[in-house]
């Protein structure tokens, strides 16, 4: 890639004033570094993943409201976690976390266990239990 062809598109980096460094060739064909504000194909790829996450959050919320899933599922999604990541944060086996996804099981959890989830999501137990249904 030639230096003057390095894209300077608007991106999610622009608003934080972050620029990334790229390697490109100068007019003599020698390598040099240059900064870029962003590149459209990347921005689209990123917003595609963000849309995906937002959809997952909305789905999870609906499931909680329908009584098909416990609030843990919702908080897992807004924290961009998946089962593996969540289970390593709370220190339970994956099958146990999965069990806690059931509203009927969730209702019986002790405060000690709930606290671990609350810590992982950085909310209080009360918020964990009630913030969606309210």
């Amino acid at each position: 890639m030639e230096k003057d062809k390095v894209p300077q598109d608007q991106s999610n980096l622009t608003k934080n004033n972050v620029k990334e460094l790229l390697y490109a060739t100068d007019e003599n064909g020698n390598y040099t570094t240059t900064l870029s504000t962003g590149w459209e194909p990347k921005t689209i790829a990123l917003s595609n993943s963000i849309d995906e996450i937002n959809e997952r959050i909305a789905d999870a919320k609906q499931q909680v409201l329908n009584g098909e899933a416990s609030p843990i599922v919702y908080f897992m999604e807004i924290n961009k976690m998946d089962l593996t990541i969540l289970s390593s944060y709370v220190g339970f086996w994956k099958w146990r976390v999965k069990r806690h996804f059931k509203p009927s099981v969730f209702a019986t959890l002790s405060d000690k266990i709930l606290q671990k989830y609350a810590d992982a999501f950085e909310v209080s137990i009360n918020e964990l239990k009630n913030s969606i249904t309210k």
Partner: protein
Amino acid sequence: MELNFTHHQSAHCENGVASNLLKNSGLNISEPMVFGIGSGLFFVYLPFIKVNYAPAISYRTLPGQIFNKVATRLNLKIKRQKFSSQSNANKALDENLKNNIPTGLQVGVYNLSYFPDEYRFHFNAHNLVVYGKTETDYLVSDPVMETVTTLTHEELNKVRFAKGAFAPRGQMYYPIQIPTNVDLKSAIIKGIKNTCRDMLAPMPIVGVRGIKFVSKQIRKWPIKHGTKKANHYLAQMVRMQEEIGTGGGGFRFIYAAFLQEASVVLGNEELKELSKEMTKIGDSWRDFAVEASRIYKNRSAKEDAYNTIADELLDIANREEIFFKKLKKAIS
């Protein structure tokens, strides 16, 4: 407390930290040189491991390997420590700062407050240098940022003990011994040989064959998984290839910069020509990203569009196969 440390922005975090730490200890070595000697260029496709709900594709070797290989090949000694207790990890870091040692850390990205929100994923193989401490903050040189920055004590603690795949477990590292004369030439040759071996490996999911395999799979994605999932897979692939850290074109441009530098060190004109060829291959990777983005932007994946980019990818793989065979010859 602030140690004397010069921050240089780099494309990729691990090369950048390695290069910055070594420069700070008096060994002037560029980011592409670290990447090349450490054989960072790689390709692997792991369909059975899902990252962000898409098959894992990596354009680089495992975290930590680049710096380790650089250390072995240049005869440097690097000390690495992991911790099970957070307070011990803090003590060790503070001790290092007291002893005037800027220290590299492996961290998770999710709680890096200076990153734009959209970039904060649970990715644990990020690297930065801590070079000082105040009452409230640690002074941080994150090589992908333009300037130095800070994290509060609590924030640094969180990123050092992020959980999940590649959990850093407080890992810190720093050079403890650097020889006065390093043999750059033999290190470069070892680095190149290693990369050629990786990229031409006779395994279906690695190197050039891995790229060909992905090309074959891409054709099936829309039929097998439906348009939506196929588009998501493709977007993830482009992100791995182009996101902050790769220097563009799935590390191909950094590698081309390395070959150019290597041609001067080794006095090998052929490497200069090969550097130009690698640049062109990098440009093709960029074109691939543009074509792919057209598909997931329109959200209407015709089967044909997937076949077109699969052809493009196959062409890149074939060219890389020829390229790495030539490269192998050029240094033997």
